[in-house]
């Protein structure tokens, strides 16, 4: 310790034993211990003593430079604001197409497609398990025909499209590629993202189909195919969002997401790809929760840790391979059904954390999402929230404005360190896939979720409107309804398609797919051919189910 720090140390001790002791003797603090939303202890005061070991150039560096703690671009929001990308989609392809075209007319350049659950799990709309779910949480896509409708009059070389699709990501991407071809757009002009992150489906989101091994193969096949044919496509969005929604802590969100990332990189390297060929197209997706300081620290820690992992563990050389680019969505689980307008303020704070944390794109939740799908009015308020932060708050004028804050830097260090320890543990278990199969990650998430619930129920944690400041007899807001006819219409259309298409061609393409699945060859070309013959999503996934089997979840309590 330098002489200055020693002196400071003494001064701080004097402050604690002097003024602080005196004050707390007269007025005890509100709580015995203060903790973050994740339960990490928070000190009364942070000083240079807390970041005495921080090495500016090694640990923070400059924006756009390793280890990217301060941001991945040299000018950040001074150059370009984050992409404001609102996730939307419901009912049939026609309805969603209308919404997208409206959004594009309003100047939005990025589309974000939400699919309904049958689509996400690879069932056609007429599957028995799809009953009641068609068009509910997103748009129903059964075949290329629906994709043609969904993107009618939308030039695919002019938009970037993000698709929240995982287990059948290869099929939806194939549909997008064939659709572009029909529009005369070559695949190397296509820009967009597929979520394609199966590991977090196993632990948190639940829309899995196949077991880990073939699922990882599908993912690396996509990496390989896209690096050759769709170079501008983000082939995966490695997601901590849903893991956090399932109840984990900030540290766990970073650790489990990056551990998943490591698993994908390892799988791709093992499949023979060069890390710098695919790593620049990896992207991430995080949650923005309520604890502002902890969240800012989390984003910064994640960025620094990923850069270090890619450099030290995988020897990546391309600077773009080292950059953790991420999308953020505000925390759905933080929204309350009680006094829903309060959620506007919650989302504001969360979105602010994302901006202060240097996100590349942002979805702000709507106030009524704890009650149902958002109305147009709520979505507009949510979008305006981002715009106010971007244009009015001033936080976008300088890069990484909270850097150097004793508390933020200290929390950044602590989150990184704790995440490193978790990743070490996961490595010992054999990596993320093994840790999931053994239920380790699920158990950790559940422990945190249960601890949080108990903290709320015992009033240790206050949630405004839920366990404090409640009101009786709330006025209910106007809610959006999805019409039940959607299911019938979609099913009827599907029946027609099965009649109209050239079934000999479809069957041949499906047979070709089956044969390919039984070898080690890249699956993408066979899936593209099947899609072209209007084979349905369910038919394609059924072939793969027969060859690959289905995932059976671990039961963890």
């Amino acid at each position, binding site marked *: 310790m330098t002489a200055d720090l020693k002196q400071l140390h003494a001064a701080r001790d004097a402050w604690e034993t002097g003024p602080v002791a005196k004050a707390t003797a007269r007025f005890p603090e509100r709580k015995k211990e203060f903790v973050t939303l994740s339960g990490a202890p928070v000190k009364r005061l942070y000083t240079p003593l807390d970041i005495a070991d921080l090495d500016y150039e090694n640990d923070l560096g400059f924006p756009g430079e390793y280890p990217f703690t301060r941001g991945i671009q040299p000018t950040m929001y001074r150059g370009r604001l984050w992409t404001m990308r609102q996730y939307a989609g419901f009912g049939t392809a026609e309805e969603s197409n209308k919404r997208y075209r409206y959004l594009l007319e309003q100047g939005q350049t990025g589309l974000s497609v939400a699919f309904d659950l049958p689509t996400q*799990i690879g069932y056609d709309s007429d599957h028995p*398990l799809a009953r009641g779910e068609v068009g509910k949480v997103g748009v129903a896509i059964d075949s290329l025909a629906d994709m043609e409708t969904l993107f009618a009059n939308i030039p695919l070389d002019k938009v970037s499209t993000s698709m929240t699709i995982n287990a059948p990501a290869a099929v939806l991407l194939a549909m997008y590629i064939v659709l572009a071809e029909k529009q005369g757009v070559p695949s190397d002009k296509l820009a967009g993202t597929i979520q394609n992150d199966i590991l977090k489906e196993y632990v948190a989101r*639940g*829309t899995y189909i196949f077991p880990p091994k073939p699922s990882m193969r599908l993912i690396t096949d996509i990496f390989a195919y896209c690096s050759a044919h769709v170079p501008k496509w983000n082939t995966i969005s490695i997601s901590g969002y849903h893991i956090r929604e399932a109840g984990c802590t900030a540290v766990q969100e970073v650790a489990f997401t990056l551990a998943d990332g490591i698993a994908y990189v390892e799988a791709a390297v093992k499949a023979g790809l060069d890390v710098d060929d695919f790593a620049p197209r990896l992207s991430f997706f995080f949650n923005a929760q309520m604890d502002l300081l902890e969240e800012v620290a989390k984003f910064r820690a994640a960025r620094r840790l990923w850069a270090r992992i890619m450099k030290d563990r995988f020897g990546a050389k391309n600077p773009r391979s080292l950059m953790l680019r991420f999308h953020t969505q505000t925390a759905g689980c933080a929204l309350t059904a009680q006094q829903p307008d309060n959620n506007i303020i919650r989302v504001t704070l969360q979105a602010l954390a994302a901006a202060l944390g240097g996100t590349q794109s942002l979805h702000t939740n709507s106030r009524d999402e704890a009650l149902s799908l958002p109305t147009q009015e709520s979505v507009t308020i949510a979008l305006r929230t981002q715009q106010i932060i971007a244009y009015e708050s001033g936080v976008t004028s300088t890069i990484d404005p909270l850097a150097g804050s004793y508390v933020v830097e200290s929390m950044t260090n602590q989150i990184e360190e704790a995440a490193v320890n978790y990743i070490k543990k996961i490595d010992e278990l054999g990596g993320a896939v093994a840790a999931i199969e053994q239920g380790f990650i699920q158990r950790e998430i559940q422990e945190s979720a249960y601890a949080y619930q108990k903290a709320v129920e015992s009033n240790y944690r206050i949630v405004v409107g839920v366990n404090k400041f409640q009101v009786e007899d709330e006025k209910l807001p106007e809610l959006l309804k999805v019409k039940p006819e959607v299911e019938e219409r979609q099913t009827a259309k599907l029946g027609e398609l099965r009649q109209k298409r050239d079934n000999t061609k479809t069957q041949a393409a499906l047979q070709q797919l089956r044969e390919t699945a039984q070898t080690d060859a890249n699956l993408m070309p066979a899936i593209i051919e099947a899609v072209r013959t209007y084979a349905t999503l369910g038919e394609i996934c059924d072939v793969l189910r027969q060859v690959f089997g289905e995932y059976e979840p671990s039961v963890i309590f």
Partner: protein
Amino acid sequence: MERPIRVLIAKPGLDGHDRGAKVLARAMRDAGMEVVYTGLRQTPQQIVEAAIQEDVDVIGLSCLSGAHNHLFPEVTRLLKEQNATDILVIGGGIIPEEDIPSLKAAGISEIFTPGTPTSVAIDYIKEHVTK
């Protein structure tokens, strides 16, 4: 020996968000109940069959995908068909207030919306299960 209340917790439909269901299952266990957990993607038929084989006192359904209006009444309809309407059915998830009357009319005894403490659901069960 006082016999524990037996509850079946199920996620009907395709929705994979099971945080609430699992937290509730644990809270019920900690309240001394026996909780049969059936996991994701259950059809109403599977749920009812399991409930009968397990001889549970309560079925707890959780759905966040908006498919509750189809799935919940299907469960109570099948229970009727099996002469098992004495099994208490409760539901939770993202369920708009305006849907609740029709769900109750279909035989769902109570609906718990987001933010309900687990203790409320547990107390409700203790009050309404007739042994």
